[in-house]
């Protein structure tokens, strides 16, 4: 009896070659949640080690970028900001953009940067790109508190739309992780991806309503403009924060479907390529 019980309790692991597409093993991911959190914690701790200003950089980076944008686009180019102070307008846009860009940037390089782990230890490889989301969230929270402080100083009251902010944020991050998964898996074989990503991000930054409002885009270009899922999401994001403009529901729905599809495709493609990582990296 005790033997039977023992056998039932002993975890049994069976290893077989498994070609082709595989199901996502969510249970296995859950078992490795401690590793996920520890890796995320490592990234956060490391980022500002041996810096004088430390965590202040989390706020300084978007503040400085917002300052530059409001000078270049607000003062010099005199683009419209839908009546909101340009600085606040740019900061709100950057908040959403940074969440997207940082997640994508970190997720796409995570495998190569942790190649010593990939080739020496077993863990579900998805842990690495997923762990990047945590540090993005921490950055976002700090920068978001800063936003609330600035809104108070500009006498702008938060409105109900703020409740939808987590939805836009989730969609942005999901899209970023989806693309990031694909990029990370490709980088294992082709390091070129590392050089393409910054260029792609630069392009996307200017092709999305971060530093300017959608109203600055000529109407006949709008259809093309909203093909970029970030356009709809960032507009909605800014609407939630500042209460100006309107949510472009059509584009948001399109972006949501696209984000989900990209995420799932990325995850499955990652799983498919995963088994070669340790041999190639």
């Amino acid at each position, binding site marked *: 009896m005790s033997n039977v019980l023992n056998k039932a309790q002993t975890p049994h692991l069976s290893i077989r070659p498994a070609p082709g597409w595989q199901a996502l093993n969510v249970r296995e991911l859950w078992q490795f949640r*401690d590793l996920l959190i*520890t890796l995320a914690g490592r990234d956060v701790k490391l980022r500002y080690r041996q810096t004088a200003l430390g965590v202040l950089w989390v706020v300084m980076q978007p503040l400085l970028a917002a300052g530059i944008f409001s000078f270049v686009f607000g003062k010099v180019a005199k683009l419209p900001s839908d009546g909101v102070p340009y600085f606040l307008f740019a900061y709100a846009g950057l908040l959403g953009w940074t969440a997207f860009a940082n997640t994508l940037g970190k997720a796409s390089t995570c495998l190569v940067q942790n190649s010593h782990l990939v080739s020496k230890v077993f863990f579900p490889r998805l842990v690495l790109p997923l762990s990047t989301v945590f540090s993005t969230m921490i950055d976002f929270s700090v920068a978001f508190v800063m936003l609330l402080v600035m809104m108070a100083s500009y006498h702008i009251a938060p409105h109900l739309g703020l409740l939808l902010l987590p939805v836009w944020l989730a969609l942005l991050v999901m899209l970023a992780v989806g693309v990031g998964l694909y990029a990370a898996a490709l980088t294992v074989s082709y390091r070129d991806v590392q050089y393409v990503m910054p260029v792609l991000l630069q392009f996307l930054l200017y092709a999305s309503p971060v530093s300017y409002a959608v109203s600055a885009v000529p109407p006949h270009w709008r259809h093309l403009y909203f093909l970029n899922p970030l356009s709809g999401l960032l507009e909605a994001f800014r609407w939630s924060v500042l209460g100006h403009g309107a949510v472009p529901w059509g584009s948001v729905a399109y972006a949501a479907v696209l984000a989900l599809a990209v995420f799932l495709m990325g995850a499955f493609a990652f799983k498919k390529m995963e088994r070669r990582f340790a041999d190639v990296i």
Partner: protein
Amino acid sequence: MSSSDISVSVRGLSKSYTIAHDATQHTTVAEALLHRLKKPLPRTQKETFWALRDVSFDIPHGDVVGIIGRNGAGKSTLLKVLSRITEPTAGEIDLYGRVGSLLEVGTGFHPELTGRENIYLNGAILGMGRREIRKHFDAIVDFAGVEQFLDTPVKRYSSGMYVRLAFAVAAHLEPEIMIVDEVLAVGDTEFQKKCLGKMQDVAHSGRTVLFVSHNMAAVSNLCSSCILLQGGQLSHYGPTEEVIDRYLTAASHGRQNTNALIQGFRPSWARPLITSARLLDSQGQEQISFSLGSDVTLELTFDTQNGPELKAPVMGVIINHATLGIAGGVNTRMSDFWATDGPYGTGILRCHLKRLPLLQGQYSIDLWLGDGPVDLDCLTGYLSLHIEDTDVYGTGRTPFAHMGMVYLEPQWQMVAL
């Protein structure tokens, strides 16, 4: 053996790697694209290399099994497949129990993080939960002896402290099946002893351990049985002493002095200068087995081919006992022999050892070739030497084999008081 006693079962395991030849290996997308454009239907020359081929074995619960074999025999690949880092090409593996693997000491240690942070990080990477690490935290710190430096970034640690901490974390893993690669080859001698002691505790705690090492002393110390891999195939699986004997004699029996064979004994840094090596008796005949106390000559032939010739060739010899460690070593530098008629493009170096004072047993020999102060080539364990027990004292009795590795020539005296 009933199936419930088995903890590791491997059936027909194979792992192949594809090696692409010519310009068919692309590291950039552009190269790959360009190649695709030029040859839309690629017929690349690919060679399949089998790192493991049709390996099958069963390991019962609680066994400590050594995995031995030459460089490139497939030991590390086997461990990587067993610990799920890479997928097998064919075959089935069943593991009954929680698996922990340690292929490298200090995996994921980050120099900027403190000792404390690295314990949690490394623990998590090796598969421990936070609660488990917290439980063992004090024991880990104690084992590593780094209390005062817990909050110092490990980049400021001495290399010894670093290795100690890294091993300490790994040593407190508590899986039912433990997979360990050559990890004892770190740290100073004292710490190595401590590690070996810890490994023995693990071995005696009823866990199943798979242990790869080139250190036959450690293997015979820890393991009850051994697996010998040769060219990716399982050659022998049996009691440790038997398999180690086979491993060491396999190297010398029926050997052709082919370069390909020699290459397997060469560390990665070595230049392939030694073309053959052998053991000779006092008559100049090639032998692998000698009586206790005979004269033994070690000979190596070198050829620099198109490389620079050797101005002052240097030969070094290290004799290792199969299980007890280094028996002795000597080189031309320390005994002040200098070949001065050079430079030499090719040549033969011989080392005559008079009345070799080694006890009966199995030994392997490392040969070194250098030029002046520089080491150029090395064959580790290529030659193996068997010493037969012989009636050296002329008494009808032979020295005890368990009396170490040196044979003594005593002169006794008794003085009544």
